[in-house]
């Protein structure tokens, strides 16, 4: 018979009781990855059951700190480190990962890379099974973790069939089954739509409330989690520059601006249904028309009769839940995927030519960088199309602020620099429409603002922009029109 685990809820300490000993203690931790400084004398103490939110600009050392807390650094990722990390009494530099993983678990940004079984239940049972526990104990832990994350109903499903939010919850459940006291999450909501973000946050709060699990969450977007956090840490250049309550984090406006922090909206945004405008009543000749487009994959239609028109000076946001067809529509408009039915045409009657007419900036800019230097990356397209002009090239490099990076390897750049390089490579062909597919992924608000301001400048000069995003604030700030797509149709339909 299955042996079930006792709920390990923490009793709230009485007001006069002594402070609890920290479950996580980082002491003067310094780390260099590949010779580059990543952490600089970081010290931190987290008592049991606390919800700590860590934020800061791209490249500030947040993910390195997360990996050091979990022992990935130095056990799996080589680094020169000094100082100590202690989790629930274990020194993560001394003890093996198998032991550390029973005290602290980590959930990464991309759930796809953390799931490798054909059934959710097997996925969750994988960790305990590796600990060589009796099978009944393994089953009991898996059942507890599935129940704690609200996934009991999908235990027999294939992880690949689940939504992005559910996959992330499976990744959390898989870590929970190891019974860690500390759960570290590295941007767990970055690629999720608002309902799935809420689902993940609610689950984390329940884990803390019911099981006393300490949560360390790294996020660029503070808004979804800040109201629930006990404490916020801000990092910059490998150091903790702020450690305080969520109420005080935005008091220093200059610091927020310098770190690219976004103030959460004072009010909740109304749902997209209320914000999305009527279908385009294009003024004058539209730049591009999408007429009754049906497209999909392996016989399954993702787009089901999409109609829209974009004007030359349009700055349109395309919003909708995960799986609604946003990225597929972007591929069709960019000419990278043929519609099964319907057509996409420019005003002059021809189909969109990938790159020349429409540039698409992927969610992860690194996916579209493939040469050895930033200079070659930007020059590749024009050379390939026999349109290379040194003066044009120099201008694009200057406008995208890439001159200083010209000889750097694109893969070694920060996320923001990679995004600028990808954008520069796109702009070198002077497209008439730029599509941005979720540009917020892994980006702090400062980087994002600079990118979007640059696009506004292009837009004013006549380049249409289509922004695909779940991010309310970004959409509100930049888009002049909002289109909502749901189940493959632009609504209202």
């Amino acid at each position: 018979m299955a042996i079930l685990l006792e709920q390990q809820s923490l009793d709230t300490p009485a007001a006069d009781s002594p402070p609890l000993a920290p479950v996580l203690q980082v002491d003067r931790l310094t780390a260099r990855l590949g010779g580059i400084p990543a952490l600089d004398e970081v010290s931190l103490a987290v008592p049991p059951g606390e919800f700590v939110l860590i934020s800061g600009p791209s490249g500030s050392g947040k993910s390195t700190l997360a990996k050091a807390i979990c022992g990935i650094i130095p056990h799996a990722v080589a680094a020169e480190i000094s100082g100590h990390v202690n989790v629930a009494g274990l020194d993560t530099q001394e003890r093996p990962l198998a032991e550390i993983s029973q005290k602290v678990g980590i959930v990464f940004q991309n759930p796809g890379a953390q799931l490798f079984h054909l059934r959710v239940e097997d996925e969750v049972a994988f960790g305990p099974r590796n600990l060589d526990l009796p099978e009944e104990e393994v089953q009991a832990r898996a059942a507890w973790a599935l129940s704690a994350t609200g996934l009991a109903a999908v235990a027999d499903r294939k992880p690949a069939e689940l939504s992005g939010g559910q996959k992330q919850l499976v990744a959390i459940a898989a870590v929970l089954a190891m019974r860690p006291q500390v759960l570290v999450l590295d941007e767990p909501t970055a690629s999720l739509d608002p309902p799935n973000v809420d689902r993940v946050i609610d689950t984390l709060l329940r884990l803390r409330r019911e099981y006393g699990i300490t949560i360390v969450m790294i996020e660029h977007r503070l808004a979804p989690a800040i109201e629930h956090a006990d404490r916020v840490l801000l990092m910059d250049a490998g150091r903790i520059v702020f450690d305080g309550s969520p109420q005080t984090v935005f008091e220093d406006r200059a610091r927020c601006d310098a770190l690219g922090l976004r103030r959460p909206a004072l009010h909740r945004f109304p749902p997209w249904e209320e914000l999305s405008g009527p279908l385009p009543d294009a003024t004058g000749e539209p730049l591009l028309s999408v007429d009754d487009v049906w497209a999909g994959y392996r016989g399954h239609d993702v787009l089901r009769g999409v109609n829209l028109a974009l004007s030359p000076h349009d700055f349109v946001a395309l919003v909708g839940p995960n799986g609604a067809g946003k990225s597929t529509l972007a591929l069709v408009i960019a000419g990278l995927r043929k519609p099964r039915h319907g057509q996409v045409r420019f005003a002059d009657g021809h189909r969109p030519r990938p790159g020349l007419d429409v540039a698409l900036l992927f969610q992860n800019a690194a996916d579209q960088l493939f040469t050895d230097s930033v200079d070659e990356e930007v020059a590749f397209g024009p050379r390939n199309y026999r349109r290379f002009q040194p003066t044009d090239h120099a201008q694009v490099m200057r406008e995208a602020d890439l001159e200083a990076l010209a000889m750097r390897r694109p893969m070694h750049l920060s996320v923001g620099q990679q995004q600028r390089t990808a954008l520069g490579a796109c702009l070198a062909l002077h497209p008439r429409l730029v599509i941005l597919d979720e540009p917020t992924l892994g980006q702090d608000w400062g980087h994002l603002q600079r990118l979007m301001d640059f696009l506004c400048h292009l837009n004013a000069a006549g380049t249409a922009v289509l922004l695909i995003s779940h991010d309310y604030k970004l959409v509100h700030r930049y888009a002049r029109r909002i289109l909502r797509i749901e189940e493959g149709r632009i609504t209202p339909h």
Partner: protein
Amino acid sequence: MERSRARTVSVVAAAETSLLGTYGHLAVFMWLLGLAMLAPAARLPLTVAFCGLIAAVVYPGALRHILRLRYLIWMFLLIAPAVFFLGERDAVFAGVAYSTEGLQMAGQMAMRFVVTLVAIQGFTSVVEVTALAGMLERFGLRGLGFSLGVALNLLPGIQQSSYHAWHALRMRGGLRRQWWRGLQLLVMTIVTNALKHAEDVALAAEMRAFCPEKSRPMPVRRGRLDWAPAVLGLASLLFLIVI
């Protein structure tokens, strides 16, 4: 918590009380295949009817699947040559000469094909890939379940990043003027992305205490009557051979 407790108990209980587990279903599968392959021509119709009866009891859904068009086409392609090319064409039907010996052979092939198809359909419909992998792991293929899961979950990711690389190249002219350089870069990008995915998976597995040398096989569901098909199968095969 109560719900999960109930569920855990039900899963364990189901495994304990079900009549056939993975080994039992494997025995049924081997039994059906053995009967189909070893039955002499004279006893084949009776044997096939017996196999149909077993399948109807153990895999009630499998019989429906064999009526799919693609299986019927496969069967036709398998048996049609026998009708015309095996033995002498000694009969005519609607102006077309055929071999009666070939027709008999084709009939036998069709019956054996149907039983094999039902056995495969039935077995794969009730036994999960992970259980099968768990069983094979016990026969020495260590880490198969993990490798299979990684492959099946990783491939869509690698495919996606390969599409991205190809789309990125297409947006910059594809394999035009710099086709050789473009091709090199494309292949390098796909390989690099695949390695990156693999590294992510290895990291996540390591954080869940995975060690290839010490990996434990996936559990195999056992049934109360797992022994029965093995005994009955052996008995019926012996009967076929002796009688």
